[in-house]
């Protein structure tokens, strides 16, 4: 692609029109999350956002980012100890309905996409109480895993949001699907 054709203004306008507070695309690492976390917290505090809402937004962002870090099928090798990090996109925007939308997108394999879809469809059928029940049952039964999340992250996200998780999948090629996730949190609790 010709460098001169990068439409910086189109990126600017897209972010402006959609009230995107920030967005990052690249390898997701803890270091990236620390700096994103600091700047989001600072920005939201400056806008007099309720500390409780800021914590909620960041907690959801962390779960979404960790999903990419661990499960994105697009990975990059980091220097230290041959560790790899998943590549994806995360961000926060404001909706017309006075909500924050925490969004993420990354490539997953076609088979994983089915598994994720099944899980999310199930989560979205659960009431608040069922979600709580299902979550704590899984937590109690949860085997100690060195992977560390045991598929509970999406339950956590749904509970924090309090409204259905929006998601979609678009086929990229025979093996890969782009997985999009949107989670909403009310600006005022």
């Amino acid at each position, binding site marked *: 692609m010709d460098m001169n054709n990068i439409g910086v203004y189109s990126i600017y306008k897209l972010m402006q029109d959609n009230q995107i507070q920030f967005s990052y695309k690249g390898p997701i690492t803890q270091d990236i999350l620390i700096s994103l976390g600091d700047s989001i917290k600072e920005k939201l505090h400056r806008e007099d956002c309720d500390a*409780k809402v800021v914590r*909620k937004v960041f907690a959801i962002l962390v779960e979404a980012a960790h999903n990419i870090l661990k499960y994105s099928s697009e990975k990059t090798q980091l220097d230290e100890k041959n560790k790899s990090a998943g590549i994806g996109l995360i961000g926060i925007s404001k909706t017309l309905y006075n909500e924050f939308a925490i969004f993420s997108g990354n490539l997953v394999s076609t088979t994983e996409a089915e598994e994720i879809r099944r899980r999310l469809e199930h989560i979205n059928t659960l009431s608040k109480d069922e979600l709580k029940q299902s979550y704590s049952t899984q937590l109690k039964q949860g085997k100690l895993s060195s992977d560390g999340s045991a598929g*509970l992250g999406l*339950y956590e996200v749904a509970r924090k949001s309090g409204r259905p998780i929006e998601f979609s999948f678009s086929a990229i090629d025979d093996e890969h699907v782009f997985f999009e996730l949107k989670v909403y949190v009310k600006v005022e609790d």
Partner: protein
Amino acid sequence: MEKMRISASKYTPEIIYDPATYTLSIEGESWPENAFDIYMPLLEKLEAYFRKPGQSLKVDVMLDLMNTSSRIMYRELINLLQRAHDEGHSVEMKWFYQAGDEDMQEDWEELMEDCSLPYHIVEREE
């Protein structure tokens, strides 16, 4: 029994475990990508500590943020302490949360559901 002291990072809490004073205190944020690595050494030390009969331990935990991976490890910590309590050790727990942080208050209440060991959930004023 040796003391254990791990400094806080931006996403892991300070952990101070001191068998000489019968205390374990944890304070900070907890959102590592893999909490297993952070908490497993502590759990192993506690397992060893409770092998001797009649031990006592006071546990204070103050967290600002807890991700799913950490929650799984706190569930393990609670299970371990509940077992110790059932075996006759003296265990006392205090869970702190920041003033107004109802999410964290609920998190602790849920984690302690069905537990019979003595505990308090305490709101910490700014």
